[in-house]
């Protein structure tokens, strides 16, 4: 079996800590939202805030890393082979057809992945960030000159983004099993080494 080193140490650390934080933010976020009681509102709100700040910190490093290593190019969208990927997931994967995408160190994401991650990067995250920050600094709005903002709308978009994130996570977690073997992708994200198709 062919193996290539895809995910560097920082990237793996980033991925798993981000995953944990996002799961935790969803858990506490939907509790704040009133969907269920788990930690209790007070703790949920304070954990959510702490986790949000931690994610901010992680992101500073991640953005720095992505830019300085040039890895940002991994997210440049391409429509090339998107249809082939879709066809593969809809039929090929069941018939053991060859994977249309060849993973390499310079292109580690397949075109669908690129699009999906880009969507997270440029749609979900910015919404969650901006609304999250406004939410955090609710009391400073008037001194920032944005007193006209309404919490209702800020929360509205924060919640929409939270749902989008949830849907992304469901699809993402499932697709980790679509590697050469069901655990191949997960292993890759733990060890860095991917078994290719």
């Amino acid at each position, binding site marked *: 079996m062919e193996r290539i080193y895809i995910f560097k140490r920082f990237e793996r650390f980033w991925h798993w800590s981000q995953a944990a934080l996002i799961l935790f933010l969803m858990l506490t976020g939907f509790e704040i939202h009133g969907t269920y009681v788990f930690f209790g509102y007070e703790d949920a*709100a304070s954990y959510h805030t702490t986790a949000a700040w931690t994610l901010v910190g992680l992101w500073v490093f991640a953005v720095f890393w992505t830019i300085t290593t040039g890895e940002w190019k991994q997210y440049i969208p391409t429509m090339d082979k998107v249809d082939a990927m879709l066809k593969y997931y809809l039929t090929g994967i069941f018939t053991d057809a060859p994977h249309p995408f060849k993973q390499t160190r310079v292109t580690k994401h397949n075109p669908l992945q690129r699009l999906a991650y880009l969507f997270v990067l440029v749609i979900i995250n910015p919404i969650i960030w901006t609304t999250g920050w406004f939410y955090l600094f609710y009391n400073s709005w008037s001194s920032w000159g944005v007193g006209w903002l309404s919490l209702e709308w800020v929360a509205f978009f924060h919640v929409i983004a939270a749902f989008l994130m949830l849907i992304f996570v*469901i699809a993402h977690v499932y697709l980790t099993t679509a590697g050469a073997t069901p655990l191949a992708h997960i292993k890759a994200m733990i060890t860095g080494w991917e078994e290719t198709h």
Partner: protein
Amino acid sequence: MSIPRIQFLAVGALAILFMLAGMANASVEKSKAAAKAPAVAAATDKKPAKESKSTADHSKFKELDKNFKTGPDVTKACLECHTEAAKQVHKTKHWNWEWVNPQTKQKLGKKNVINNFCTSVESNQTFCSACHVGYGWSDDSFDFAKEENVDCIVCHDTTGKYKKIPGLSGHPNYKSMEWPPHSGRFRPAVDLKKIAQNVGKTSRQTCGSCHFFGGGGNAVKHGDLDTSLINPGHALDVHMETNGLNMTCGDCHLSDSHEVSGSRYAPTASDDKGALIRGSQDERNPTTCVACHGNEPHVTEAKLNHHTDKIACQTCHIPAYARGNLHTKMTWDWSTAGKLDEKGHRIRTKGSEGRDLYDSKKGHFTYERYVIPEYVWFNGNVRFTLFGEKVDTDKVKINEFLGSADDPDARIWPVKVFRGKQPYDVGNETLAVFHTAGKDDAAFWGNYDWDKALAAGMKAMDVEYSGNMKFVETEMSWPITHMVAPKEDALTCAQCHKENGRLHAIQDIYMPGRNNTPIIDKMGWTLALLALIGVLIHGLIRIVTSKRG
């Protein structure tokens, strides 16, 4: 490659961004610290006034070593030294029972307001003036300019033996008399000499001798003021706790020239200017939580400080009122008053706690303790429905606390809402004044005849009774501000941040945990569920096809 330069620029821009954010944050923290400082200072100089530190011992004054015959005689003696005292009292609400709200121009004060307890003072002064700081107010001929009419003792007694008796127009009993009436018990004549020789500062007892008994009995009216506050424990009142701070009413209700601060006719609903420092020349009300604690009193949970721009301290820190084990009156239905037994005698039925449930004189009551307040927006403006105002509904708001979410001066306040049914003059379309107590033929408590009582009451207001009356439902709000609980007992976040929480009546704000956009929730969960089902089916097909293959 030109990429390194882009990288450099991007990193630089990011670094600057974070520095700016950090600076903004630091300046916020700094201004917070500045606002906090006075509050800390105020908290450390707490010295409860336990024993008199006065430089004068009144028992050594020969002016007071006399067998005074009446209250006014005592007052004259007081005024020999305290030459300006009566003039000062003459300017106060305690004396005039009248106050004009400069904003609404409404003429308020006990003399003018109709409430839904004993309803109105007019025509009933001989009784009501048991809580007037004066002697002799029995009708409109009372001389408000006479200095010896001021009652110094009722506020400055320290013996606890001074009691003004309803029916004596503000006087105590100078002779032994049966009290309560028909009880077979006798009150000895008041010992004015002893009392005069022992005057001192006001106390929880002296203020309480009227304010704990509003509405005609202990704990009846306010809900947050009753005799349990004379000797309260920690759980009841963190400020007045006898073994703790042991504060008196006057420690918060600072007075100047006999004018006592704090008023429920014009309460200070919000103050965002921080703690009041001694010497400060601004004319803010010193009787607020903020005056000592500032606007950011929460040290460990900063998020709580973010609530002070919307929520009055009282809302969280007085989780319930009437916590002193005494029941406060919640409703009063005058419409059933006047029923007598077969022999034509007054009926009184008592509940298990010894509280009147029915009294022929007054109608039906209900009482509660440990009552959860209702909550309203309140900006300090109170509008009253006054006598003579045309009222065309069967649900009258005796007073209304004004304010809303988008009013920067409004805070969410806890209130006791007292509900009742009381007489209304149909012809004059106004809440009615009726003659309640007195030895004459018209007094309702003697004759149980509404028409006579109303004719006399309305006449005293210079209006002719139309002869046609009915009972209307009324509501009156009382701000809850006393009986501040220990911080462990304050409301928790989740008591409001949930569906049907404490603030369910306040609907003009978005509160996380309570509000959401139902359509977004429905769509969100549906799509998430579909995604989950989708991947499960996909996975299932993969498993099945791979087995086959």
